[in-house]
């Protein structure tokens, strides 16, 4: 698997390029993907990264204990920046979390067959990112031991959460989203879990994979039910993604604070989530395909497609920045105007500069095909997007810094606990992800097979209409 003999990024309107390279039968596909789980030893890099990520995750656990024992004062939060890193991290992770299911479900509804190589990745990423996200508001409430008060549970004190608060909507939105995403991920994985079960080399694996594959036998009836369920979950997940990130944007936009209160927030946050999410998928996919030899499935064309989407969504985010700025001036509201000028030239101007450089300027490199098909260039750009999207939330949250009362203005500084928890959340995320790669089917085996030309035999070879991208027998939404 050193070099690829086929360049499937060549644009030829007459032929759809192949999306699975160097395979002409299903057995070899199964072999190659299952090898990730079945090889006796994962690559050395896996141990090293797991070690580092695990250590960071452990540090996160220690820091959370320290926080609970001491109080939220260990964070840099102050008045008026009552929400500092915890909300920045929450929105950052929940944005990445939203992208996974969005990528998977929306590309499914749009019949993008190249999704099959990345959807499992993206969905797993969703689950782990939402776990990281959910943690931050959970530990921010002060009295963690009564976290269940977030839910409207009838109680003898007649105490209820504030139903008019978008933070409560978040509890419902994120909770629902997590549940549906988990189901979507799990249902999609059942046929592949059954494959691993059937190939299990020892009793423990056979029992574990057997338990989770729910007695899958691959009968026509099983497939029929499966396809139905998958389609319905995709159709359910799509509006959920939009609603969840919109609700997250409401956390800010319903307020009267200049810089937060603007009507474009819901779609802008959704676009930002896709943007950041694709960048995170790329961040994970580029090393993974190298380490585990998955280049036949996650081909250069897949990476190029994702880069194009990063360019597109980056442009949408840029559009939203421009609209905010234009309307801040157009509104003729002095506070609105101040908030935006202050963002760009105030005490945290450097954060704004990082945000614009990483989110708007860096993706412009992808206009060039040579650059967007170069692994190093794309890796650098997606890393910048990851950074830029974190800083975007930082910039938004820090609109609090200079509120309506100049006497309370101060410079927000994170503490070492803030920084440690941010690093720790990456550790938790990566730990979960590395375990996923090792123990679960990392590419949707059954779905990848369905997009190979072999899945769609045409004895008479008529027409170019049966290329790999769109052809007869697409699985597709009918709702």
């Amino acid at each position, binding site marked *: 698997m050193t070099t690829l003999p086929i360049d499937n990024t060549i*644009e*030829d*309107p*007459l032929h*759809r390029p192949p999306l699975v390279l160097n395979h002409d039968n299903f057995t070899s596909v199964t072999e190659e993907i299952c090898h990730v789980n079945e090889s006796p030893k994962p690559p050395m890099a896996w141990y090293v990264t797991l070690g580092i990520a695990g250590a960071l995750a452990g540090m996160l656990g220690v820091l959370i204990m320290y926080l609970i024992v001491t109080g939220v004062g260990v964070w840099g939060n102050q008045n008026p920046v009552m929400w500092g890193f915890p909300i920045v991290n929450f929105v950052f992770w929940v944005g990445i979390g939203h992208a996974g299911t969005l990528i998977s479900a929306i590309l499914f509804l749009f*019949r993008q067959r190249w999704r099959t190589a990345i959807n499992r990745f993206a969905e797993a990423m969703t689950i782990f990112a939402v776990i990281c996200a959910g943690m931050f508001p959970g530990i921010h409430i002060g009295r963690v031991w009564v976290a269940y008060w977030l839910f409207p549970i009838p109680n003898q004190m007649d105490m209820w959460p504030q139903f008019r608060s978008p933070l409560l909507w978040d509890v419902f939105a994120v909770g629902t989203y997590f549940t549906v995403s988990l189901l979507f991920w799990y249902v999609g994985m059942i046929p592949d879990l059954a494959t691993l079960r059937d190939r299990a080399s020892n009793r423990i694996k056979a029992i574990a994979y057997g338990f989770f594959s729910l007695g899958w036998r691959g009968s026509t009836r099983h497939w029929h039910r499966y396809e139905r369920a998958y389609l319905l979950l995709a159709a359910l997940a799509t*509006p959920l993604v*939009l609603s969840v990130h*919109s609700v997250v944007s*409401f956390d800010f*936009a*319903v*307020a*009267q604070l200049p810089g937060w*209160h*603007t*009507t*474009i*927030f*819901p*779609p802008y946050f959704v676009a930002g989530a896709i943007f950041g999410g694709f960048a995170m998928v790329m961040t994970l996919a580029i090393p993974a395909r190298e380490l585990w030899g998955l280049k036949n499935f996650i081909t250069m064309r897949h990476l190029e497609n994702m880069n194009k989407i990063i*360019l597109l969504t980056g*442009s949408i985010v840029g*559009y*939203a920045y421009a*609209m*905010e700025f234009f*309307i801040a001036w*157009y*509104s*003729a*509201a002095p506070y609105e105007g101040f908030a935006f000028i202050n963002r760009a030239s105030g005490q945290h101007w450097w954060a704004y500069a990082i945000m614009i450089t990483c989110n708007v300027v860096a993706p412009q490199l992808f*206009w060039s095909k040579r650059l967007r098909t170069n692994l190093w260039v794309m890796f650098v750009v997606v890393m910048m997007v990851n950074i830029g999207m974190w800083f975007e939330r930082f910039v938004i949250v820090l609109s609090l810094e200079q509120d309506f009362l100049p006497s309370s203005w101060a410079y927000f500084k994170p503490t070492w606990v803030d920084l440690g928890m941010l690093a720790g959340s990456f550790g938790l995320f990566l730990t979960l992800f590395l375990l996923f790669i090792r123990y679960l089917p990392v590419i949707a085996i059954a779905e990848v097979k369905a997009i190979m030309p072999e899945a769609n035999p045409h004895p008479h070879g008529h*027409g*170019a*209409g*049966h*290329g790999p*991208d*769109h*052809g*007869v*027998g*697409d699985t*597709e*939404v*009918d*709702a």
Partner: protein
Amino acid sequence: MVTPDRHQLGAVAPRVIRLAGGAGLVALAITIVLALVDGDATRFFRSYLVALLFVLTIPLGGLFFTIVQHLTRAGWSVALRRLMEGLAANLQWLWILFIPILVLVISGRADGLFPWLDHAHHDHALEHKAPYLNAGFWIVRAILFFGIWAFLSRFFFRNSVAQDASGDVRYTHAMQRLAPVAMIMYALTQTFAAFDWAMSLSPHWFSTIFGVYFFAGTCCAFFSSLILLVFFLQRQGKLENEVTLEHYQDVGKLLFGFGVAFWGYIGFSQFMLIWYANIPEETTWWIARTQGPWRTFTWLLFIGHFCIPFVVLITKHTKRHRIVIAGIAVYMLVMHALDMYWLVMPLIPDALHHATSLQALGNEIESDPAMVGFTPHLMDVTCLLGLLGLLVAGTAYQLRRCSLIPVRDPRLSESLAFENM
């Protein structure tokens, strides 16, 4: 290359041009008579602006969707693409319909329509906006918008038709190369056109999502029109084998997704955030639309443009039944016309400044609906039908000689073989 009759409009084109164009002109003549009887020029121009925005959104949506096809290298839609291009090609002449408004602005009598043109009253906020909202720059922008739209729609139409003759894939490459830049140009021009021609009618009010809301409207207008165009052509015996129920279903899905659900989502975002924060600068626009007679109208839009079609279009059965989906398309066009009416007509009442409560204001408006611009008139309907007639005739004119499908597009066979299930 000889294309069979069912790929050409043939004798249908002159008939449509005569009938629709004639009916349009008659309706416009009636409108002018009604306007002269009414005697209020501003009132007429409000009505005209509604109609103009309505007929503009259809080809604008067509241009957007044509660009999307090339951006995504879509296969399924090729059989429909000529019709999209044909609808969009109207942008080459629609500037003519904009001239009356342009003349009104140049003549300096448009301050009833665009209050920011009124310099007699000292207004701090409008003075602040004057670098953007002034007659000269506004006219330059309008010329720029129409110029860009005409160029883009002509480019895609011309290249696509040229490919019919030679079958050269270079045309496909050329269109795909321009598509990303075209999309950026489209997004910016459409946004600022919405600001200029609809948002600036209430010049103190502002909303960052306004351009996106207008875009959602163009989706509704275009997908409905595309369904009706195909339906009409198939009734005339054209494209019977090429456009199948699969295509109907897909366009129906897009109408559901963008024209109904996305529209509702954006509209809700715009309403909810402003209602919740309750900042006086912003609520004015919504107060005009939620007090007095417009209140019912707003509810009508919410239920009629979102709730009902959401339920009706969610099943595949309605999308795969030609007559049913065509009926829904007509219904959605009516809803879209109401949406444009609702965007343009309501006025923010002066009474807002002295009202002691929302209740009192509501009562005051009820007693005099004209203060919020609620003055339904027959010319609203005739004007809209007039311009729509011209648009239909214009579409037939654009498509009169070319093939109705891109016969030698390299991906046509994909579109013909495409199935949903």
